[in-house]
Protein backbone atom coordinates (compact mmCIF):
# COMPACT_ATOMS: atom_id res chain seq x y z
CA UNK A 1 0.00 0.00 0.00
CA UNK A 2 2.82 2.38 0.81
CA UNK A 3 4.35 1.68 -2.66
CA UNK A 4 1.29 3.12 -4.38
CA UNK A 5 1.50 6.33 -2.39
CA UNK A 6 5.15 6.77 -3.38
CA UNK A 7 4.18 7.11 -7.08
CA UNK A 8 4.07 10.91 -7.14
CA UNK A 9 4.91 13.44 -9.84
CA UNK A 10 8.50 14.75 -9.72
CA UNK A 11 9.90 17.57 -11.85
CA UNK A 12 12.43 16.44 -14.52
CA UNK A 13 15.99 17.43 -13.82
CA UNK A 14 16.43 18.81 -17.41
CA UNK A 15 14.22 21.69 -18.59
CA UNK A 16 12.29 21.42 -21.84
CA UNK A 17 12.46 25.12 -22.82
CA UNK A 18 15.33 27.28 -24.14
CA UNK A 19 16.45 29.76 -21.49
CA UNK A 20 16.57 33.42 -22.37
CA UNK A 21 20.19 33.78 -21.32
CA UNK A 22 22.81 32.96 -22.61
CA UNK A 23 21.53 34.43 -25.93
CA UNK A 24 21.43 32.14 -29.00
CA UNK A 25 24.49 32.62 -31.20
CA UNK A 26 23.50 34.16 -34.58
CA UNK A 27 24.72 32.33 -37.68
CA UNK A 28 24.50 28.97 -35.94
CA UNK A 29 21.69 26.50 -35.63
CA UNK A 30 20.67 28.25 -32.38
CA UNK A 31 19.78 31.34 -34.40
CA UNK A 32 19.93 30.49 -38.09
CA UNK A 33 20.29 33.30 -40.68
CA UNK A 34 17.02 34.82 -41.91
CA UNK A 35 16.23 33.66 -45.46
CA UNK A 36 13.10 35.47 -46.66
CA UNK A 37 10.91 33.59 -49.09
CA UNK A 38 10.72 34.91 -52.66
CA UNK A 39 7.48 36.92 -52.91
CA UNK A 40 7.15 35.87 -56.56
CA UNK A 41 6.91 32.20 -55.63
CA UNK A 42 3.40 30.85 -55.21
CA UNK A 43 1.93 34.34 -55.12
CA UNK A 44 -1.83 34.58 -55.71
CA UNK A 45 -1.55 38.06 -57.29
CA UNK A 46 1.32 37.13 -59.63
CA UNK A 47 0.71 36.24 -63.29
CA UNK A 48 3.26 33.72 -64.54
CA UNK A 49 3.86 33.38 -68.28
CA UNK A 50 6.34 30.75 -69.36
CA UNK A 51 8.18 31.02 -72.69
CA UNK A 52 9.83 27.65 -73.14
CA UNK A 53 11.35 28.61 -76.54
CA UNK A 54 13.45 31.38 -75.03
CA UNK A 55 13.78 29.53 -71.75
CA UNK A 56 12.21 32.49 -69.97
CA UNK A 57 9.52 32.94 -67.35
CA UNK A 58 7.73 36.27 -67.05
CA UNK A 59 6.25 36.94 -63.65
CA UNK A 60 4.09 40.06 -63.42
CA UNK A 61 3.24 40.99 -59.86
CA UNK A 62 1.84 44.52 -59.44
CA UNK A 63 2.74 46.16 -56.13
CA UNK A 64 0.30 45.41 -53.32
CA UNK A 65 -0.50 49.11 -52.87
CA UNK A 66 -3.74 50.64 -54.10
CA UNK A 67 -3.95 50.93 -57.89
CA UNK A 68 -3.87 54.31 -59.60
CA UNK A 69 -7.35 55.82 -59.92
CA UNK A 70 -6.68 56.68 -63.58
CA UNK A 71 -8.18 54.09 -65.94
CA UNK A 72 -9.82 53.84 -69.34
CA UNK A 73 -13.61 53.78 -69.70
CA UNK A 74 -13.31 50.56 -71.70
CA UNK A 75 -11.79 48.86 -68.64
CA UNK A 76 -12.69 51.01 -65.65
CA UNK A 77 -11.04 50.57 -62.28
CA UNK A 78 -14.14 51.71 -60.39
CA UNK A 79 -16.74 48.98 -59.76
CA UNK A 80 -19.45 51.64 -60.03
CA UNK A 81 -18.80 51.84 -63.76
CA UNK A 82 -19.10 48.07 -64.12
CA UNK A 83 -22.11 45.85 -63.45
CA UNK A 84 -22.26 44.77 -59.78
CA UNK A 85 -20.46 41.55 -59.02
CA UNK A 86 -21.77 38.98 -56.61
CA UNK A 87 -19.09 36.52 -55.63
CA UNK A 88 -19.92 35.25 -52.21
CA UNK A 89 -16.57 35.66 -50.50
CA UNK A 90 -15.54 36.45 -46.99
CA UNK A 91 -15.16 40.21 -46.67
CA UNK A 92 -12.72 41.97 -44.36
CA UNK A 93 -14.13 43.09 -41.01
CA UNK A 94 -16.10 46.32 -40.79
CA UNK A 95 -14.17 49.32 -39.58
CA UNK A 96 -16.60 50.16 -36.81
CA UNK A 97 -19.18 47.85 -35.23
CA UNK A 98 -21.90 50.50 -35.56
CA UNK A 99 -21.81 50.02 -39.34
CA UNK A 100 -23.42 46.63 -38.93
CA UNK A 101 -26.77 48.22 -38.07
CA UNK A 102 -29.73 47.41 -40.26
CA UNK A 103 -31.82 50.13 -41.93
CA UNK A 104 -34.30 51.49 -39.36
CA UNK A 105 -38.00 50.81 -39.95
CA UNK A 106 -40.14 53.51 -41.49
CA UNK A 107 -41.86 55.71 -38.94
CA UNK A 108 -45.60 56.23 -38.99
CA UNK A 109 -47.23 59.60 -39.52
CA UNK A 110 -48.24 59.72 -35.85
CA UNK A 111 -44.62 59.30 -34.76
CA UNK A 112 -43.45 61.94 -37.21
CA UNK A 113 -46.06 64.35 -35.86
CA UNK A 114 -44.87 63.61 -32.33
CA UNK A 115 -41.25 64.34 -33.35
CA UNK A 116 -42.34 67.67 -34.83
CA UNK A 117 -44.31 68.57 -31.73
CA UNK A 118 -41.46 67.87 -29.33
CA UNK A 119 -38.91 69.70 -31.48
CA UNK A 120 -41.02 72.80 -31.79
CA UNK A 121 -41.78 72.65 -28.06
CA UNK A 122 -38.18 72.96 -26.91
CA UNK A 123 -35.40 72.55 -29.47
CA UNK A 124 -32.73 72.89 -26.80
CA UNK A 125 -34.10 70.04 -24.69
CA UNK A 126 -35.31 67.84 -27.55
CA UNK A 127 -32.21 67.80 -29.71
CA UNK A 128 -31.92 65.81 -32.95
CA UNK A 129 -29.79 63.18 -31.27
CA UNK A 130 -32.20 62.73 -28.37
CA UNK A 131 -35.20 62.42 -30.66
CA UNK A 132 -33.32 59.99 -32.90
CA UNK A 133 -32.60 57.78 -29.93
CA UNK A 134 -36.17 57.95 -28.65
CA UNK A 135 -37.81 57.08 -31.96
CA UNK A 136 -35.04 54.78 -33.30
CA UNK A 137 -34.22 56.72 -36.44
CA UNK A 138 -31.25 58.74 -37.68
CA UNK A 139 -30.43 62.33 -36.76
CA UNK A 140 -30.56 63.25 -40.43
CA UNK A 141 -34.15 61.98 -40.61
CA UNK A 142 -35.11 64.16 -37.65
CA UNK A 143 -33.43 67.13 -39.34
CA UNK A 144 -35.32 66.40 -42.54
CA UNK A 145 -38.67 65.97 -40.89
CA UNK A 146 -38.52 68.44 -38.01
CA UNK A 147 -36.09 71.19 -38.96
CA UNK A 148 -36.00 74.25 -36.75
CA UNK A 149 -36.53 77.67 -38.27
CA UNK A 150 -33.44 79.25 -39.80
CA UNK A 151 -33.34 82.09 -37.25
CA UNK A 152 -33.63 79.70 -34.28
CA UNK A 153 -31.03 77.40 -35.81
CA UNK A 154 -28.48 80.15 -36.40
CA UNK A 155 -29.05 81.45 -32.87
CA UNK A 156 -28.50 78.01 -31.33
CA UNK A 157 -25.43 77.36 -33.45
CA UNK A 158 -23.97 80.74 -32.55
CA UNK A 159 -24.59 80.10 -28.85
CA UNK A 160 -22.95 76.68 -29.12
CA UNK A 161 -19.92 78.08 -30.98
CA UNK A 162 -19.49 80.84 -28.41
CA UNK A 163 -19.60 78.29 -25.60
CA UNK A 164 -17.00 76.13 -27.35
CA UNK A 165 -14.82 79.18 -28.02
CA UNK A 166 -14.96 80.12 -24.33
CA UNK A 167 -13.98 76.58 -23.36
CA UNK A 168 -11.10 76.62 -25.80
CA UNK A 169 -9.88 79.83 -24.18
CA UNK A 170 -9.54 77.97 -20.88
CA UNK A 171 -7.19 75.40 -22.39
CA UNK A 172 -3.54 75.34 -21.48
CA UNK A 173 -1.02 76.35 -24.12
CA UNK A 174 0.13 72.76 -24.57
CA UNK A 175 -3.39 71.53 -25.19
CA UNK A 176 -4.07 74.32 -27.70
CA UNK A 177 -0.84 73.47 -29.49
CA UNK A 178 -1.75 69.78 -29.74
CA UNK A 179 -5.21 70.66 -31.07
CA UNK A 180 -3.74 73.06 -33.64
CA UNK A 181 -1.24 70.42 -34.79
CA UNK A 182 -3.95 67.78 -35.28
CA UNK A 183 -6.09 70.31 -37.17
CA UNK A 184 -3.16 71.08 -39.47
CA UNK A 185 -2.54 67.38 -40.00
CA UNK A 186 -6.14 66.99 -41.11
CA UNK A 187 -5.38 69.30 -44.02
CA UNK A 188 -2.80 66.81 -45.28
CA UNK A 189 -5.16 63.83 -45.38
Amino acid sequence: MLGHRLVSFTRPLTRAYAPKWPRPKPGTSERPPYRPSDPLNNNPSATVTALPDENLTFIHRPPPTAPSPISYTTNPVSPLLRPPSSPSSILPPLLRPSADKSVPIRLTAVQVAEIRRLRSLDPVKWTRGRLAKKFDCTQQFVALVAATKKTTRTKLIRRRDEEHEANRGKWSEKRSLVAAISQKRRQYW
Partner: protein
Amino acid sequence: MGHVQRRLASTTAKLASSLSTAHLQKFPPKELLFAKGREIPTATIDPDTWASLQPPPPTALSAFAHRIGLSSVLNSTEAIQQICTHPSFLQLLKQHKPHEQESATNGQLAAIGNSLMGLFATEYVRATYPHLPTRVMKAAVTAHVGPLPCANVAQEMGATPLLRWHRSRGTLLKPGVLHSDALASIPRALTALVYQRRSLPSARQFVHSYFLSREVDLRGMIKFLDPKKALLEMVKKFQRELPKSRLLKETGRFSNSPVFVVGIFSGEDQLGEGFGSSLKMAEYRAAEDALLRVYLSRTPPHLVQLPSQTFPVGVGDVYRKLPEVDYKAADLVESEIMYASSGNSFTRSS
Protein backbone atom coordinates in the same frame (compact mmCIF):
# COMPACT_ATOMS: atom_id res chain seq x y z
CA MET B 1 18.14 95.78 -57.21
CA GLY B 2 14.61 96.42 -56.07
CA HIS B 3 11.61 94.94 -57.83
CA VAL B 4 10.86 98.26 -59.57
CA GLN B 5 14.31 98.41 -61.12
CA ARG B 6 14.08 94.80 -62.15
CA ARG B 7 10.71 95.41 -63.77
CA LEU B 8 12.08 98.42 -65.70
CA ALA B 9 15.10 96.43 -66.82
CA SER B 10 12.99 93.55 -68.09
CA THR B 11 10.62 95.90 -69.94
CA THR B 12 13.54 97.71 -71.54
CA ALA B 13 15.14 94.43 -72.52
CA LYS B 14 11.88 93.33 -74.14
CA LEU B 15 11.64 96.55 -76.08
CA ALA B 16 15.30 96.65 -77.05
CA SER B 17 15.24 93.11 -78.39
CA SER B 18 12.24 93.86 -80.61
CA LEU B 19 13.74 96.80 -82.48
CA SER B 20 15.47 96.14 -85.77
CA THR B 21 16.17 99.14 -87.94
CA ALA B 22 17.02 97.55 -91.30
CA HIS B 23 13.47 97.86 -92.65
CA LEU B 24 12.86 101.44 -91.48
CA GLN B 25 12.71 104.05 -94.21
CA LYS B 26 14.41 106.80 -92.27
CA PHE B 27 16.87 106.02 -89.56
CA PRO B 28 17.91 107.82 -87.42
CA PRO B 29 14.50 109.53 -87.34
CA LYS B 30 14.21 113.27 -87.21
CA GLU B 31 11.84 113.26 -84.23
CA LEU B 32 14.48 111.67 -82.06
CA LEU B 33 17.17 114.16 -83.05
CA PHE B 34 15.63 117.58 -83.57
CA ALA B 35 12.64 119.53 -82.44
CA LYS B 36 11.59 122.33 -84.76
CA GLY B 37 12.34 125.81 -83.56
CA ARG B 38 14.87 124.90 -80.91
CA GLU B 39 18.56 125.67 -81.08
CA ILE B 40 19.71 122.70 -79.00
CA PRO B 41 18.55 119.42 -80.52
CA THR B 42 16.30 117.59 -78.04
CA ALA B 43 14.15 114.56 -78.62
CA THR B 44 10.41 115.12 -78.49
CA ILE B 45 9.80 111.49 -77.88
CA ASP B 46 11.28 108.99 -75.47
CA PRO B 47 13.47 106.40 -77.30
CA ASP B 48 11.72 103.45 -75.67
CA THR B 49 8.33 104.73 -76.72
CA TRP B 50 9.64 105.40 -80.23
CA ALA B 51 10.94 101.84 -80.39
CA SER B 52 7.59 100.40 -79.34
CA LEU B 53 5.83 102.41 -82.08
CA GLN B 54 7.93 100.96 -84.91
CA PRO B 55 6.60 97.94 -86.78
CA PRO B 56 8.58 94.73 -86.56
CA PRO B 57 10.61 93.84 -89.67
CA PRO B 58 8.67 91.90 -92.33
CA THR B 59 11.36 89.22 -92.29
CA ALA B 60 10.63 88.51 -88.63
CA LEU B 61 6.89 88.35 -89.34
CA SER B 62 7.42 85.94 -92.21
CA ALA B 63 9.73 83.80 -90.10
CA PHE B 64 7.09 83.68 -87.39
CA ALA B 65 4.42 82.51 -89.85
CA HIS B 66 6.69 79.76 -91.16
CA ARG B 67 7.79 78.73 -87.68
CA ILE B 68 4.24 78.04 -86.52
CA GLY B 69 3.41 76.21 -89.75
CA LEU B 70 0.77 78.65 -90.98
CA SER B 71 2.70 80.27 -93.82
CA SER B 72 0.00 79.30 -96.35
CA VAL B 73 -2.78 80.81 -94.20
CA LEU B 74 -0.83 83.96 -93.24
CA ASN B 75 0.19 84.77 -96.78
CA SER B 76 0.62 88.54 -96.34
CA THR B 77 2.64 90.64 -93.93
CA GLU B 78 -0.46 92.70 -93.15
CA ALA B 79 -2.31 89.65 -91.86
CA ILE B 80 0.57 88.70 -89.55
CA GLN B 81 0.87 92.32 -88.45
CA GLN B 82 -2.83 92.38 -87.60
CA ILE B 83 -2.50 89.18 -85.57
CA CYS B 84 0.34 90.67 -83.50
CA THR B 85 -1.24 94.07 -82.83
CA HIS B 86 -3.27 94.35 -79.64
CA PRO B 87 -6.10 96.97 -79.62
CA SER B 88 -4.33 98.85 -76.79
CA PHE B 89 -1.65 99.82 -79.33
CA LEU B 90 -4.04 102.24 -81.05
CA GLN B 91 -4.06 104.45 -77.99
CA LEU B 92 -0.28 104.75 -78.12
CA LEU B 93 -0.38 105.42 -81.86
CA LYS B 94 -2.99 108.14 -81.52
CA GLN B 95 -0.99 109.77 -78.75
CA HIS B 96 2.31 109.99 -80.62
CA LYS B 97 1.41 109.74 -84.30
CA PRO B 98 -2.07 111.21 -84.61
CA HIS B 99 -1.85 111.66 -88.39
CA GLU B 100 -0.92 108.10 -89.18
CA GLN B 101 -3.55 105.69 -90.46
CA GLU B 102 -4.98 103.36 -87.84
CA SER B 103 -3.54 99.87 -88.16
CA ALA B 104 -5.74 96.78 -88.00
CA THR B 105 -5.82 95.08 -84.58
CA ASN B 106 -6.58 91.58 -83.42
CA GLY B 107 -9.41 92.51 -81.04
CA GLN B 108 -12.30 91.00 -82.98
CA LEU B 109 -10.26 88.02 -84.14
CA ALA B 110 -9.16 87.34 -80.57
CA ALA B 111 -12.78 87.37 -79.39
CA ILE B 112 -13.86 84.86 -82.07
CA GLY B 113 -10.80 82.75 -81.47
CA ASN B 114 -11.39 82.71 -77.71
CA SER B 115 -14.91 81.31 -78.22
CA LEU B 116 -13.65 78.71 -80.69
CA MET B 117 -10.87 77.60 -78.35
CA GLY B 118 -13.35 77.30 -75.51
CA LEU B 119 -15.57 75.17 -77.72
CA PHE B 120 -12.80 72.82 -78.79
CA ALA B 121 -11.33 72.48 -75.30
CA THR B 122 -14.72 71.84 -73.69
CA GLU B 123 -15.74 69.15 -76.14
CA TYR B 124 -12.32 67.51 -75.86
CA VAL B 125 -12.27 67.49 -72.06
CA ARG B 126 -15.87 66.27 -71.91
CA ALA B 127 -15.21 63.49 -74.42
CA THR B 128 -11.98 62.43 -72.72
CA TYR B 129 -13.28 62.51 -69.12
CA PRO B 130 -17.04 61.89 -69.30
CA HIS B 131 -17.49 61.53 -65.54
CA LEU B 132 -15.61 64.67 -64.52
CA PRO B 133 -17.66 67.12 -62.41
CA THR B 134 -18.49 70.46 -64.02
CA ARG B 135 -16.33 72.61 -61.77
CA VAL B 136 -13.29 70.45 -62.52
CA MET B 137 -14.10 70.44 -66.24
CA LYS B 138 -14.17 74.26 -66.20
CA ALA B 139 -10.82 74.34 -64.43
CA ALA B 140 -9.40 71.87 -66.95
CA VAL B 141 -10.61 74.00 -69.88
CA THR B 142 -8.96 77.05 -68.30
CA ALA B 143 -5.76 75.06 -67.80
CA HIS B 144 -5.77 74.11 -71.48
CA VAL B 145 -6.86 77.33 -73.25
CA GLY B 146 -7.08 79.97 -70.52
CA PRO B 147 -5.25 83.31 -70.59
CA LEU B 148 -2.11 81.92 -69.00
CA PRO B 149 -1.58 78.99 -71.39
CA CYS B 150 -2.38 81.27 -74.32
CA ALA B 151 0.32 83.72 -73.21
CA ASN B 152 2.77 80.85 -72.67
CA VAL B 153 2.10 79.39 -76.11
CA ALA B 154 2.57 82.82 -77.68
CA GLN B 155 5.95 83.08 -75.98
CA GLU B 156 6.87 79.58 -77.11
CA MET B 157 5.89 80.51 -80.67
CA GLY B 158 8.26 83.48 -80.44
CA ALA B 159 5.66 86.21 -80.81
CA THR B 160 6.99 88.37 -77.95
CA PRO B 161 9.23 90.62 -80.10
CA LEU B 162 6.49 90.96 -82.73
CA LEU B 163 3.76 92.03 -80.30
CA ARG B 164 2.65 95.66 -80.46
CA TRP B 165 0.74 96.76 -77.39
CA HIS B 166 0.49 99.40 -74.69
CA ARG B 167 0.37 98.78 -70.96
CA SER B 168 -2.56 100.42 -69.21
CA ARG B 169 -3.78 100.50 -65.65
CA GLY B 170 -7.28 99.23 -64.96
CA THR B 171 -10.01 101.78 -64.32
CA LEU B 172 -13.50 101.31 -62.94
CA LEU B 173 -14.92 101.06 -66.45
CA LYS B 174 -12.15 99.30 -68.35
CA PRO B 175 -9.85 96.48 -67.24
CA GLY B 176 -6.11 97.04 -67.45
CA VAL B 177 -3.86 95.52 -70.09
CA LEU B 178 -0.85 93.52 -68.98
CA HIS B 179 1.83 91.87 -71.09
CA SER B 180 0.27 88.42 -70.65
CA ASP B 181 -3.16 89.74 -71.74
CA ALA B 182 -1.67 91.17 -74.91
CA LEU B 183 0.33 88.01 -75.63
CA ALA B 184 -2.71 85.78 -75.07
CA SER B 185 -4.57 87.57 -77.86
CA ILE B 186 -2.13 86.27 -80.49
CA PRO B 187 -2.99 82.52 -80.47
CA ARG B 188 -6.68 83.38 -80.20
CA ALA B 189 -6.44 85.62 -83.25
CA LEU B 190 -4.56 82.86 -85.09
CA THR B 191 -7.34 80.38 -84.34
CA ALA B 192 -9.96 82.78 -85.67
CA LEU B 193 -7.94 83.48 -88.80
CA VAL B 194 -7.49 79.78 -89.53
CA TYR B 195 -11.25 79.33 -89.05
CA GLN B 196 -12.05 82.21 -91.41
CA ARG B 197 -9.55 81.41 -94.14
CA ARG B 198 -9.73 77.63 -93.95
CA SER B 199 -12.36 75.72 -91.99
CA LEU B 200 -13.52 74.77 -88.52
CA PRO B 201 -11.76 71.37 -88.57
CA SER B 202 -8.51 73.17 -89.47
CA ALA B 203 -8.93 75.56 -86.55
CA ARG B 204 -9.65 72.59 -84.31
CA GLN B 205 -6.48 70.89 -85.54
CA PHE B 206 -4.51 74.03 -84.70
CA VAL B 207 -5.92 74.19 -81.16
CA HIS B 208 -5.39 70.47 -80.61
CA SER B 209 -1.76 70.56 -81.67
CA TYR B 210 -0.81 73.65 -79.68
CA PHE B 211 -3.06 73.52 -76.61
CA LEU B 212 -4.84 70.21 -76.12
CA SER B 213 -1.69 68.17 -76.43
CA ARG B 214 -0.30 69.86 -73.31
CA GLU B 215 -0.14 67.83 -70.12
CA VAL B 216 -2.66 68.93 -67.49
CA ASP B 217 -2.78 67.29 -64.07
CA LEU B 218 -6.41 66.86 -63.10
CA ARG B 219 -5.79 65.28 -59.72
CA GLY B 220 -4.60 68.60 -58.32
CA MET B 221 -7.85 70.26 -59.39
CA ILE B 222 -10.11 67.80 -57.57
CA LYS B 223 -10.41 68.67 -53.90
CA PHE B 224 -12.85 67.30 -51.37
CA LEU B 225 -14.22 68.64 -48.13
CA ASP B 226 -16.31 65.61 -47.19
CA PRO B 227 -15.50 62.74 -49.59
CA LYS B 228 -17.55 60.23 -47.61
CA LYS B 229 -20.69 62.31 -48.09
CA ALA B 230 -19.90 62.78 -51.77
CA LEU B 231 -19.31 59.04 -52.21
CA LEU B 232 -22.60 58.22 -50.48
CA GLU B 233 -24.44 60.48 -52.91
CA MET B 234 -22.61 58.96 -55.86
CA VAL B 235 -23.36 55.39 -54.79
CA LYS B 236 -27.05 56.26 -54.37
CA LYS B 237 -27.02 57.74 -57.88
CA PHE B 238 -25.60 54.52 -59.30
CA GLN B 239 -28.20 52.61 -57.25
CA ARG B 240 -25.78 50.36 -55.46
CA GLU B 241 -25.56 49.18 -51.89
CA LEU B 242 -24.53 51.85 -49.43
CA PRO B 243 -20.76 52.10 -48.86
CA LYS B 244 -19.26 50.45 -45.83
CA SER B 245 -15.63 50.79 -44.83
CA ARG B 246 -13.67 47.70 -43.92
CA LEU B 247 -10.23 47.27 -42.46
CA LEU B 248 -7.96 45.49 -44.92
CA LYS B 249 -4.62 45.65 -43.14
CA GLU B 250 -3.19 47.26 -40.07
CA THR B 251 0.04 47.42 -38.21
CA GLY B 252 1.37 49.22 -35.19
CA ARG B 253 -1.95 50.04 -33.52
CA PHE B 254 -1.32 51.87 -30.20
CA SER B 255 2.25 52.57 -31.26
CA ASN B 256 3.55 55.96 -32.36
CA SER B 257 3.45 55.07 -36.07
CA PRO B 258 0.43 52.96 -36.94
CA VAL B 259 -0.54 52.21 -40.53
CA PHE B 260 -4.10 51.26 -41.44
CA VAL B 261 -5.30 50.23 -44.88
CA VAL B 262 -9.03 50.69 -45.26
CA GLY B 263 -11.20 49.75 -48.20
CA ILE B 264 -14.67 51.17 -48.93
CA PHE B 265 -17.02 48.47 -50.17
CA SER B 266 -20.40 48.60 -51.80
CA GLY B 267 -21.72 45.11 -51.20
CA GLU B 268 -18.81 42.96 -52.32
CA ASP B 269 -17.17 45.45 -54.69
CA GLN B 270 -14.26 47.46 -53.39
CA LEU B 271 -14.80 51.03 -54.53
CA GLY B 272 -11.64 52.54 -53.11
CA GLU B 273 -8.66 51.92 -50.90
CA GLY B 274 -6.70 54.25 -48.68
CA PHE B 275 -4.00 54.14 -46.08
CA GLY B 276 -3.39 56.39 -43.11
CA SER B 277 -1.93 56.73 -39.68
CA SER B 278 -5.41 56.72 -38.15
CA LEU B 279 -8.58 54.84 -39.02
CA LYS B 280 -10.38 58.06 -39.92
CA MET B 281 -7.56 59.23 -42.17
CA ALA B 282 -7.45 55.92 -44.01
CA GLU B 283 -11.22 55.98 -44.47
CA TYR B 284 -11.07 59.55 -45.78
CA ARG B 285 -8.42 58.59 -48.33
CA ALA B 286 -10.37 55.50 -49.34
CA ALA B 287 -13.42 57.67 -50.05
CA GLU B 288 -11.25 60.07 -52.08
CA ASP B 289 -9.79 57.15 -54.04
CA ALA B 290 -13.27 55.80 -54.75
CA LEU B 291 -14.40 59.15 -56.13
CA LEU B 292 -11.23 59.69 -58.15
CA ARG B 293 -11.58 56.28 -59.77
CA VAL B 294 -14.86 57.43 -61.26
CA TYR B 295 -13.87 60.99 -62.10
CA LEU B 296 -10.55 60.19 -63.75
CA SER B 297 -11.77 57.38 -66.00
CA ARG B 298 -10.83 58.56 -69.48
CA THR B 299 -11.82 57.48 -72.95
CA PRO B 300 -9.00 55.88 -74.94
CA PRO B 301 -7.61 58.47 -77.41
CA HIS B 302 -8.56 56.40 -80.47
CA LEU B 303 -12.18 56.22 -79.31
CA VAL B 304 -12.67 59.94 -78.58
CA GLN B 305 -15.55 61.26 -80.70
CA LEU B 306 -15.87 65.05 -80.86
CA PRO B 307 -19.19 66.66 -81.85
CA SER B 308 -17.42 69.18 -84.09
CA GLN B 309 -16.35 66.28 -86.31
CA THR B 310 -19.76 66.61 -87.91
CA PHE B 311 -18.84 70.01 -89.34
CA PRO B 312 -17.76 69.99 -92.98
CA VAL B 313 -14.11 69.89 -93.96
CA GLY B 314 -12.96 72.48 -96.47
CA VAL B 315 -13.71 76.11 -97.19
CA GLY B 316 -17.36 77.06 -97.46
CA ASP B 317 -20.56 77.50 -95.52
CA VAL B 318 -20.30 75.82 -92.13
CA TYR B 319 -23.96 74.79 -92.20
CA ARG B 320 -24.11 73.30 -95.69
CA LYS B 321 -25.60 69.83 -96.07
CA LEU B 322 -23.17 66.95 -96.10
CA PRO B 323 -23.17 63.20 -96.73
CA GLU B 324 -23.35 61.08 -93.58
CA VAL B 325 -20.24 61.38 -91.46
CA ASP B 326 -18.87 58.50 -89.44
CA TYR B 327 -19.71 59.84 -85.98
CA LYS B 328 -20.96 57.93 -82.98
CA ALA B 329 -22.34 60.07 -80.17
CA ALA B 330 -20.98 59.26 -76.71
CA ASP B 331 -23.27 57.41 -74.30
CA LEU B 332 -24.85 59.56 -71.65
CA VAL B 333 -23.36 58.89 -68.24
CA GLU B 334 -24.86 59.43 -64.79
CA SER B 335 -25.19 63.15 -64.04
CA GLU B 336 -22.81 64.61 -61.48
CA ILE B 337 -23.63 64.70 -57.79
CA MET B 338 -25.00 67.98 -56.49
CA TYR B 339 -22.97 68.04 -53.29
CA ALA B 340 -20.10 70.54 -53.56
CA SER B 341 -20.80 71.13 -57.25
CA SER B 342 -21.86 74.78 -57.40
CA GLY B 343 -19.74 77.87 -57.76
CA ASN B 344 -16.02 78.34 -58.12
CA SER B 345 -15.07 77.46 -54.58
CA PHE B 346 -16.79 75.35 -52.05
CA THR B 347 -17.31 76.94 -48.65
CA ARG B 348 -18.65 75.03 -45.73
CA SER B 349 -22.07 76.21 -44.70
CA SER B 350 -22.94 76.10 -41.03
